[in-house]
């Protein structure tokens, strides 16, 4: 009911974010698609010519894209949510709005990018002649777990960022490290077995694996590890809400 009541505000905030992002740039919203494509080309070159990774018969570019798109969504959404409260300081100190909506609006705006990138992915799949598998029906549930994890982290970081602006400086480095610890560029089979246990503690690992499995291989998500991610995400989401609720009371005093 919270969402329904503030649907219009949320709607406008998302629109503001989307509309304003690429104003005063020639290519405008096309950047949403260009950035992942450029990344894709660069990484593909490195990994196709210098370092060969086994991808189970799928062209590396395709393999990469299926993991890179959800990863970039995750990273961009977390970054954007982290800065959302501080960026909206003029609203926070003047208008009584439910403060939950600021990180939420930033994450929602990134979902639009994700959907556009999925469209490009469909084009890729047709180009590489990857057949569309029935397992695609699992995408919404994988996305939902991904979304809760992002939003939970977003709530935690955005509220702490109000008190310590260090957070928004460190977040980029943190996300880069996280990407290398997640099987985005390489398959999980390449991880040495003696560190596998720690590797699997990363909640993004099953999420990225699941995206890939259902899109490229027609394999259902690895339920056991996926349930771990689901549990982790739910806990982080509610923890995030609790922390945010506590800290948001004093936002106007500190910001």
């Amino acid at each position: 009911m919270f969402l329904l009541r503030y649907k219009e505000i949320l709607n406008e905030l998302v629109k503001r974010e989307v509309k304003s992002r690429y104003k005063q740039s020639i290519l405008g919203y096309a950047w949403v698609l260009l950035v992942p494509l450029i990344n894709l080309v660069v990484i593909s070159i490195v990994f196709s010519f210098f370092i060969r990774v086994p991808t189970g018969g799928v062209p590396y570019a395709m393999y990469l894209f299926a993991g890179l798109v959800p990863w970039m969504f995750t990273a961009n959404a977390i970054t954007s949510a982290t800065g959302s409260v501080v960026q909206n300081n003029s609203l926070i100190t003047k208008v009584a709005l439910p403060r939950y909506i600021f990180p939420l609006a930033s994450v929602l705006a990134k979902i639009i990018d994700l959907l556009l990138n999925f469209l490009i992915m469909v084009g890729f799949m047709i180009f590489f002649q990857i057949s569309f598998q029935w397992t695609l029906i699992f995408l919404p549930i994988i996305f939902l777990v991904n979304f809760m994890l992002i939003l939970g982290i977003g709530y935690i970081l955005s509220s702490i960022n109000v008190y310590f602006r260090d957070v928004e400086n460190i977040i980029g480095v943190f996300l880069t490290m996280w990407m290398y610890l997640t099987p985005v560029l390489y398959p999980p089979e390449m991880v040495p077995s003696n560190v596998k246990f720690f590797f699997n503690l990363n909640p993004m690992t099953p999420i990225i694996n699941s995206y890939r499995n259902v899109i490229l291989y027609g394999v259902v998500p690895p339920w056991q590890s996926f349930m771990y991610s689901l549990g982790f995400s739910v806990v982080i989401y509610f923890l995030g809400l609790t922390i945010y609720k506590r800290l948001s009371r004093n936002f106007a005093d500190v910001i």
Partner: protein
Amino acid sequence: MDTIIFKNVGKTFKKGQKLLLKEALLDMFKPSKSETFEVLKDINFSLEQGKTLGIIGNNGSGKSTILKIVAGVMFPDRGSVKVSGRIAPLIDVGAGFHPELTGRENIYLNGVILGLKRSEIDKKYQSIVDFAGLGDFIDTPIKHYSSGMYMRLGFSIAIHTDPDILLVDEILAVGDEAFQHKCFLKIKEFQRAKKTIIFVTHSLFLVGKYCDEVMLIDNGVIKYLGDPKIALEKYKTQES
């Protein structure tokens, strides 16, 4: 009926909030000096619907904090606050405007933020534009607006939200005389429509002209609340 009730309201700020992790970490090893500052001490008052209250006092006396608590963006540490009705905060109007978006886009954005529905804005749109006197500029990104145009648009949206309570913080110092005149006519109109208004101002002229009651506040304590003339007298003697 009272629309605003403050009961034993107190608010304390921490002086110099640590905005850097480094400072916060370093301070953990220092003996904690509790540097706090009591902005409001035991504030009690109630305001009847349809009344206009002026709040006067020196800088740092706690005027704006009261306004922010009424607006619902700050919360008291002690005591209770009851505010009923839709609020239009004319505190730094145009909060939430996006400089890259056009006047039109910002009207919808800001209108919804202030509690209107899109359909309601559709109906009021022309009136908002006319009041702001923006004419052809409405489809220009507002970063190209002059500060006067910006304020006019913000003010115009805020008063079109059909508020029950109007919060005014030094706002009317901006805009040219013609626009100021329009604003005061609007405020008179609000008064006739039995809206509750709170002014926070340094302009004693405004207070004398528009307010039913005046609160004189000093160091977070209400020194006087009541007749505007007496409040102004007391304020002047306090000054000298």
